[in-house]
């Protein structure tokens, strides 16, 4: 009898295949769509909001201008649902976007540009918020990367660019190095990473002690020993008996400690986010420039992305000079900073396009870029 090897292997059990997948390389993909489908919207909202609040607040500041500008970028003021804020009253955009809740789904209007495909991105693959390797030059009085300069030279007035503005300020590139109230971001993160597993281990022990798991299985015991050590386990489990009272007592303390660490981390991260944003939103009133919140998940770095026409780029300096003096503190530092193009592949940008085409219109782009935090801590 002839049998196809594919047919034979069809029902292979994972146990006999162990190791065979080791050379299969993961493909780089945007996992957000899949994540949304698997986890659903509800959990994402709950967990994301916890960390995204400050971003949402600052975002709200720019929404007013954004809502007014979108039709201009889209080239027409039609009543397209994706480019219209919730009430449809563009003349009263500020009132419309004033968030009554923690965040507003009308924020999505900002990322629903009809002209998305027209946007000019950087060819560079490095994240745009990092110091540019490209030479810095001057275009109409503003400092820009050479790449942006060259693209502006050949562009038409209505060509649209995705740019970010950088400041040469004394803020570390990475949150890990940022010092907040005497501790580095890494220390806050480490504390968060240290306390949460203890809470997790005690939670598992509590479940096991209550008989909520089928048994105190080997792998649970092994993983607790691996992470917390035998001494830790022996405090709560000895000679086959759980010390339920101590588990419950320590569980409460561990939960409090992990919540405290999570909130401290949140505060430090917010301080970092506030300090590291290039404050280009000051331009909104003078240029009608669309601005997105960018967020680079890998390096935990927030930044802004401006969607701006060549014509707008050309008048930036003049408009900035017209700004009130008190706005200077919130504006971009033309003398020391510079503008650069944003690479299309950046996570936030790819999500923005998904939000434009996809069905998940309720989920703010900024939310899904944020690393998830356990709901127990978010409450």
């Amino acid at each position, binding site marked *: *009898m*002839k*049998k*196809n*090897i*594919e*047919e*034979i*292997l*069809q*029902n*292979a*059990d*994972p*146990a*006999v*295949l*162990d*190791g*065979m*997948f*080791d*050379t*299969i*390389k*993961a*493909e*780089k*993909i945007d*996992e957000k*769509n*899949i*994540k949304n*489908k*698997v*986890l659903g919207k509800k*959990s994402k909202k709950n*967990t994301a909001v916890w960390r995204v609040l400050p971003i949402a607040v600052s975002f709200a500041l720019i929404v007013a201008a954004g809502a007014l500008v979108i039709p201009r970028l889209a080239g027409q003021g039609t009543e397209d649902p994706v480019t219209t804020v919730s009430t449809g009253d563009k003349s009263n955009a500020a009132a419309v976007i004033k968030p009554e809740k923690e965040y507003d789904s009308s924020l999505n209007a900002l990322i629903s540009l009809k002209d998305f495909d027209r946007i000019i991105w950087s060819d560079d693959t490095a994240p745009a918020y990092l110091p540019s390797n490209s030479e810095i030059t001057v275009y109409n009085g503003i400092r820009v990367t050479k790449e942006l300069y060259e693209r502006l030279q050949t562009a038409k007035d209505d060509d649209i660019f995705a740019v970010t503005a950088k400041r040469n300020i004394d803020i570390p590139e990475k949150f890990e190095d940022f010092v907040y109230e005497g501790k580095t971001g890494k220390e806050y993160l480490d504390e968060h990473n240290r306390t949460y*597993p203890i809470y*997790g*281990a005690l*939670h*598992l022990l509590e*479940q096991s002690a209550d008989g909520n*798991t089928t048994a105190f299985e*080997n*792998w*649970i015991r*092994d*993983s*607790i020993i*691996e*992470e917390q050590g035998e001494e830790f386990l022996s405090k709560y489990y000895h000679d086959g008996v759980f010390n339920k009272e101590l588990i419950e007592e320590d569980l409460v303390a561990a939960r409090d400690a992990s919540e405290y660490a999570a909130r401290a981390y949140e505060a430090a991260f917010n301080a970092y986010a506030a300090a590291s944003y290039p404050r280009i939103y000051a331009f909104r009133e003078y240029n009608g420039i669309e601005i997105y919140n960018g967020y680079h998940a890998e390096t935990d770095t927030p930044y802004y992305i401006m969607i701006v026409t060549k014509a707008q780029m050309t008048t930036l300096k003049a408009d900035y000079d017209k700004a009130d003096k008190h706005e200077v503190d919130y504006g971009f530092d033309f003398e020391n900073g510079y503008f650069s193009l944003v690479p299309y592949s950046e996570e936030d940008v790819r999500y923005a396009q998904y939000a434009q085409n996809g069905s998940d219109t309720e989920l703010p782009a900024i939310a899904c870029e944020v690393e*998830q935090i*356990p*709901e*127990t801590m978010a409450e």
Partner: protein
Amino acid sequence: MEDGALIKLLHSDKNKGMEQVLKKYTGFVFAIVKSRLCEVCDSSEIEDCVSDVFIRFSESFDKYDPQRSSLKTYLGVMAKNLASNAARDKLSTMPLDDDGMIDVPDTFSVEDAAAEKELIKVVIEQIKLLGPPDSDIIFRKYYIGQSSKQIAKELKMSVSNVDVRAHRAMEKLRKILGGII
């Protein structure tokens, strides 16, 4: 995050655990599903299938036994099976590659589940014994369903080299398995 910690997290906080599973394995599962479906499904169908793998896993992770296989293998098998089902749904018949045929004695009955399990085990053991890159080529070609072109790209070989090695490896397997079974 290590698999043990992942599973622990899944039990204590399913949502958070799934987030970590997705973070760690989406690219891997995608690679397997895409290998199987790229010629018959569009990107959104591939994405749906990848999502189905994780949804299925989230509904049944209690059945996963870390003592028996790694989580990667477990998800890999699940991905391959669901992708095969999706491919079958698309095509009324899956074409069988003659080059992948091996002789199984008439005395072997596929109805005999235990015997089938043993046969699978023996075949896989023999594939593993081929050693790299041949074991990898056979596994990818006949289990994952990758094309010679895909295999060549991932193993950094020429397509013709992949085909020749696959052919020779199959000859070797036929010889070994024919003797054993």
